[in-house]
């Protein structure tokens, strides 16, 4: 009975998201504070990287969430294109700035880490460059939303852009691997390895990752509510003008 499509009703979405928002925001704050404090104050220095290893607690989660935010936008755009649920399109719109900020954090902390470790702020390495391109995609997506007046057309066109952009983003990723061998180390976290990094670093990292994830969810819920209200506001003003 309780199908996921019920949340396509804005009223239902508003009620559920309002109930969920304090919880997700609370969990996000708790995880972020715990993870970051643990990571910053109570983890040892790495024998090679020294204390710069602490940057991992903001760099890796924000990078992971930057990609997941785009994936979420892709799924939301697909739902909008296929089933025409307005909430879905607005959720994609709401997620874009958050994803962009995550991308920016990953880039900035990466540069700050690279300066002492690799001896350079920026290196045209496949991973770094892919993130720069992801950032550009976020910028273009948001700019297209802003540029179009009619909300339905904007939702449609940005959804098409998101779909095509995803394809080209993946192609770019592999083109970059072909283009230049990188300095960047392999994935810090992956599911198919016994142990990724030493446990002392692993636990706080997982907690901050959960924190970033919940923060993303909370922000998207919150911003989607705002977008729904803004849409209603626009409709009311248009009605008044007609009257």
């Amino acid at each position, binding site marked *: 009975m309780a199908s996921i499509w019920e949340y396509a009703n804005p009223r239902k979405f508003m009620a559920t998201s309002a109930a969920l928002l304090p919880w997700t925001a609370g969990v996000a704050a708790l995880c972020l504070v715990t993870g*970051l404090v643990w990571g*910053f*104050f109570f983890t040892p*220095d790495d024998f090679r990287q*020294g*204390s*710069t290893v*602490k*940057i991992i607690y*903001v*760099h890796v989660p*924000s990078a992971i969430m930057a990609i997941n935010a785009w994936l979420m936008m892709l799924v939301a755009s697909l739902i909008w294109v296929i089933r025409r649920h307005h909430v879905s399109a607005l959720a994609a719109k709401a997620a874009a*700035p*958050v994803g962009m*900020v995550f991308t*920016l*954090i990953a880039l*900035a*902390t990466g540069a*700050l*880490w690279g*300066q*002492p470790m690799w001896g350079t702020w920026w290196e045209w390495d496949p991973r770094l460059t892919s993130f720069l391109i992801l950032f550009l995609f976020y910028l273009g997506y948001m700019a297209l939303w802003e540029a179009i007046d009619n909300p339905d057309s904007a939702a449609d066109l940005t959804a098409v852009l998101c779909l095509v952009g995803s394809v080209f983003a993946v192609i770019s990723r592999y083109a970059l691997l072909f283009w230049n061998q990188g300095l960047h180390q392999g994935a810090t976290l992956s599911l198919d390895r016994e142990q990724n990094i030493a446990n002392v670093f692993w636990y706080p990292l997982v907690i901050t990752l959960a924190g970033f994830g919940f*923060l993303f969810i909370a*922000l998207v819920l*919150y*911003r989607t*509510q*705002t977008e729904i*209200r*803004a849409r*209603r*506001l626009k409709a*009311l*003003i248009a009605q*008044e003008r007609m009257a």
Partner: protein
Amino acid sequence: MPDLGTYALPVLSSYAVSLGLLIAVIIASVWKARRVRAQLENVENRRGRSA
């Protein structure tokens, strides 16, 4: 305060940048939400009276 050694500047600044950006996006969201909500209430009240 842990001893950050020679790398104090990059570590501290990356934490500062990250937290700053996160707080910025949160504040921007709250700001916009407040503004939209106030405008919406404004319009709805006006319509309520006129109707």
